[in-house]
């Protein structure tokens, strides 16, 4: 049993930050992301104790995370309505080695990217996240989301085009 628990802790350490980032990106709300993250790791613990282990914990966790975030988005229309302002803004990481002017310009650019990303459809968002931030191939993304490969590519290209437009004309 002790070995089981240490095994679980190892898994938790390996996947903790990835699941956290995925939840925050998909839900875009820190407190909701934390709640969903807890649910996901609780589910993982049950799965672990039941010894019905998946062949790939990373893929299993990604699938479970995407589904849990879907469920949360469907059930929390009221929570989203009453969302408070700027709860994440204070924790933005500062960037060094930049002049104040570059810093301001960079921040504006980042804000534009974030705003554009938030305006993407939920499907485009999750496909973009899984492909470019999680590093899954388009075939794997299609398998995780239960879509065809061509559909994933279509969504992905549209998302990339819109995000690039948000950057405007750059040298």
């Amino acid at each position, binding site marked *: 049993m002790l070995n089981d628990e240490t095994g679980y802790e190892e898994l938790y350490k390996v996947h903790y*930050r990835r699941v*956290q*980032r995925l939840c*925050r*990106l998909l839900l*875009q*709300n*820190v407190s909701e992301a934390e709640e969903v993250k807890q649910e996901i790791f609780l589910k993982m613990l049950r799965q672990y104790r039941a010894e019905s282990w998946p062949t790939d914990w990373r893929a299993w966790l990604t699938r479970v995370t995407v589904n849990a975030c879907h469920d949360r988005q469907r059930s929390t*229309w*009221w929570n*989203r*309505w009453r*969302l*408070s*302002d*700027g*709860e*994440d*803004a204070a*924790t*933005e*990481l500062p960037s060094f080695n930049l002049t104040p002017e570059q810093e301001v310009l960079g921040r504006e*650019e*980042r*804000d534009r*990217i*974030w*705003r554009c*990303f*938030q*305006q993407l459809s939920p499907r485009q968002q999750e496909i*973009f*996240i899984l492909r*470019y*931030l999680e590093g899954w191939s*388009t075939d794997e993304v299609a398998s995780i989301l239960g879509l065809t490969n061509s559909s994933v*590519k279509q969504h992905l*290209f549209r998302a*990339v*085009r819109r*995000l*690039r437009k948000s*950057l405007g004309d*750059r040298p």
Partner: protein
Amino acid sequence: MNHCLSDKTLWLLNEGDATQEQWRHLEGCKVCADHYDRMTRDLEMITGTLRQIPPPVRAASIRMPLVYRSIPLAVAFLLAIALLWGENMVWRQSLPDPSDQAFNNELSQFLEQVSDAIFTGTSAREAVATAPESDLNSLQAALGETCADECQELFSRSADEATVSQGMPRGPEQQRVNYRAK
């Protein structure tokens, strides 16, 4: 291939889904190569920004549209109006009618007079003697009209008869009848 590659083709090249011919064009065309480089730089910039944790979320941009956000407020407002209206209607229905209230007042006055007449120390004769007038007044007040003289006469006569039947001093003929009956 003479035409420059489209954005989608350049993106497919980046994804590894391109033909040899498209690769050859990219290597030979400076314009397409510049586009491709720019696209890869853009993608790096975008993914680099989105990798920052936690994202600098602006709550206003992820809120639901104003129409949806105002629905609960509108429903609450309508419910409040309906509640106030309903309460007002119930309150109005529970208020007594002014004419009923006047009648009740007069009736209670009449009953007070009756009880005074019965239970105060006055003798029965005094009570009966005062009763017709007070009864008449009460009746007039209750009906809201003045009785005609005939009505007044009728009322006083009936009061006299009532006095006789309550054992007041009787005439000699009546005393005689009573004696025979004994």
